[in-house]
């Protein structure tokens, strides 16, 4: 076997995939929930960044992991609420508003980083807290699988769990039902007395919560410091993952798995002769293709419905209705 295949089939690789996936699953679910609610939130990048930063800072200054977690989550939710306020109240275009939020997050974190630590690169001078790793007693003793699945950061398990939580939230709670209804037909939701703005605000805040967990993992699990722009586009990749996964939990999970594998592969492949850039490109090309295929399918379906209706009508229509062919001839003969 080639060294590449060796390393891919090693348990280290599986472990790395899960590690890389974690900061994708959270924001991908965060995006999915807003897309389902009809308020596409493309500011996950900014939400993650803010939470990553405040988690480290609060943790370092208070020494409390719990407070760090709370601070990170609160700031994520606040970002969602702010975007909601701009969009729903001030009527800012949600795309441009989100772009501004991302910009704000990038600038504001570095700004504060400098003000608080005098450093502009990272928080390496601070003693950052880290979420604990969990070794699952029984699982860890299983060969291979145990090496892959056990010993991860607690937030990695939370990420896997969050896909399930997302499923229940969206399909098994009244809020989830309302989110889906509002996204599909706001008039219908309004007609039964649902406050559409409020549901969309909740969706944005939930999205902030998911984004926050992703950000916290980055700075307090994946690594143990905050570095400027450390999200490095994960908030955008997450959007691709959610889109590819059709905003559904399993699909999004699988898409994140794909993106994570490709990413991990790119790291492993560096030693081999395949250019890593091309490998890293795959998820984005896949998303563009998925987008096109999805749009084509929707269009084809509409076409088909129309043709079927035509046939039915002619089949059941009154006898004085000429079949299409005959009508064409008649039209052409004059």
């Amino acid at each position, binding site marked *: 076997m080639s060294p590449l295949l060796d390393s891919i089939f090693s348990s280290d690789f599986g472990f790395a995939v899960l590690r890389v996936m974690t900061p994708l699953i959270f924001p991908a679910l965060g995006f999915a929930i807003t897309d389902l609610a009809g308020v596409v939130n493309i500011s996950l990048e900014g939400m993650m960044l803010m939470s990553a930063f405040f988690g480290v800072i609060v943790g370092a200054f208070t020494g409390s992991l719990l407070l760090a977690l709370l601070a990170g989550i609160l700031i994520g939710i606040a970002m969602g609420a702010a975007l909601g306020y701009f969009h729903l109240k001030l009527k800012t275009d949600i795309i441009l508003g989100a772009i501004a939020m991302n910009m704000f997050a990038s600038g504001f974190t570095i700004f504060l980083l400098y003000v608080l630590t005098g450093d502009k690169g990272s928080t390496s001078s601070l003693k950052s807290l880290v979420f604990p790793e969990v070794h699952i007693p029984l699982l860890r003793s299983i060969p291979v699988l145990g090496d892959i699945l056990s010993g991860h950061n607690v937030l990695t398990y939370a990420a896997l769990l969050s896909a399930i939580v997302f499923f*229940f939230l969206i*399909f*098994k*709670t*009244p809020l*989830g*039902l*309302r989110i*889906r*209804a509002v996204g*599909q*037909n706001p*008039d*219908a*939701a309004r*007609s*039964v*007395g*649902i406050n559409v703005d409020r549901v969309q605000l909740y969706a944005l805040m939930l999205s902030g919560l998911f984004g926050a967990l992703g950000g916290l993992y980055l700075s307090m699990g994946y690594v143990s410091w905050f570095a400027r722009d450390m999200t490095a586009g994960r908030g955008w990749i997450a959007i691709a993952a959610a889109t590819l996964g059709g905003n559904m939990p399993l699909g999004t999970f699988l898409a994140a798995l794909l993106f994570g594998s490709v990413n991990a592969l790119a790291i492993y492949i560096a030693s081999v002769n395949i250019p890593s850039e091309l490998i890293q490109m795959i998820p984005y090309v896949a998303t563009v293709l998925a987008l096109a295929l999805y749009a084509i399918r929707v269009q084809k379906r*509409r076409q088909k*419905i*129309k043709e*079927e*209706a*035509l046939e*039915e*009508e002619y089949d059941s*229509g009154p006898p004085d*209705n*000429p079949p*299409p062919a005959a*009508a*064409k001839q*008649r*039209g*052409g003969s*004059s």
Partner: protein
Amino acid sequence: MAAILEVKNIEKIYPDGVIANKDVSVSVEEGTIHAIVGENGAGKSTLMKVIFGITRPQNGTISFQGQEVNFKSPDDAIQQGIGMVHQHLMLASDLTVAENLVLGIEPKRRGIFLDDHEMIRLTREVAQRFSLEVPPDKKIKDLPIGIRQRVEILKALYRKAELLILDEPTAVLTPQETEVLFRTLKQLKANGKTILFISHKLREVKEIADRVTVMRDSQVITTEDAAKLSEEDISHLMVGRDIRTERIPQSETTGEVVLETKGLSFVNEDEIFVLKDVSFSVRAGEILGLAGVEGNGQTELVKLLTGLLQPTDGEIFVRSKAISGLSPRKVREIGLAHIPEDRMENGVADQASVKENLIVDRYYKAPYSRRSRLLWKTITDHTLDLVKRFHILTRNVDTPVNSLSGGNIQKVVVARELSADPDVLIASQPTRGVDVGSEEHIHSLLRQVRDEGKAVFMVSADLDEVLKLSSRILVIYNGEIVAHIPDPSMVSAEDLGPYMLGVKRQEDLGAEIHS
């Protein structure tokens, strides 16, 4: 029997000054099916909106179940036991029947979870109680329109509606589905529910209504037992005129056939056959008027004629040249101009200036542009000329169109289309929503176009307008031409009513329409 709903002296004037309801009083008895009929713009929809709390009247009172009510929103109306089935169904298509049904008042399990089983049980329960079968766990998008409408009715019943308002419920249904709906409504009546039913279709009204209220010109003309009125009576009351409309003398000569259609058919996105085998011709120097209640295929017909839609079947000819399949621009270049029915949707770009709106059909031609360069000087002069000729009231030529009044926006459209000097003019609802002065002006312009020897095809829901201007009249009903009136001076609005409402139809129309 006691009245469940008592509407008294309702007056509703919209902010733009249009009076939609004038001293309207209706009493609806409990446990009956009560139909409200009237032409477009007679005030039916406004009355329903007032009753359901969507809009609030200036004057008048509403009592429901013996108590005076003052609804601030539809929510209030729903709470009190009024349900409404809108013409555009209010359903989320990716959700299941049960989910749509319980939306907003979901049954819960352990405080936070949706109770799926309870949801389905509740759906079955309410469905059984009223004998309205629906598949609780199917998604709306997988169901035919008739079933979707039934879900909408169940939604209201689930919210304990005692009074159900249905806004033209049969407009989107096939005849078979309509029959099923009527059985449903009768069952609901047997269950003690009251139904308020808006319709244009007199046969349907006769078939199921106990009482009928006829509205005309924002007022209630009469409320009667349905049994006491024949279809002809109702149609007479709906369109009846106190004075015969003044007619405009027709031009003496009509020329050759300019516009002709043969066997036009069209199926829309919702799988509905909106036009069936429509054939007619328009000659130079005449105005062919198309009368009909709105939503009977006129919109699609006009779009087919102007290249904005392509026919499912059939052919269109301008001076014997087939034009179906051509782009809207090619159709215009062949000599067809078009006043669209909805000026804000197609007629203008409302944020663009008056002058930009006046050149959309000609900006690429001399003298408005040369080698892709817009000649603004010429365009401005052209605009000033049109503004003057067509009496468009605007601050200047660079004013965005959305700051003009409705009548003046329509004049912008008319000015552009008439100044294109077309062979054929398609005018759809040419004076809708404009003030009386603009209406007169536009009418005289249409006459002028006719006298210049052009062919005019005019679609209007306003019978007075059709009678006043047309050289000949066609009546459309349910996507088919059902009558041809070669000499409008021989008929009155009352004579057209039965055709428009599907009560009567002429047989053997074929050759005559092309006369």
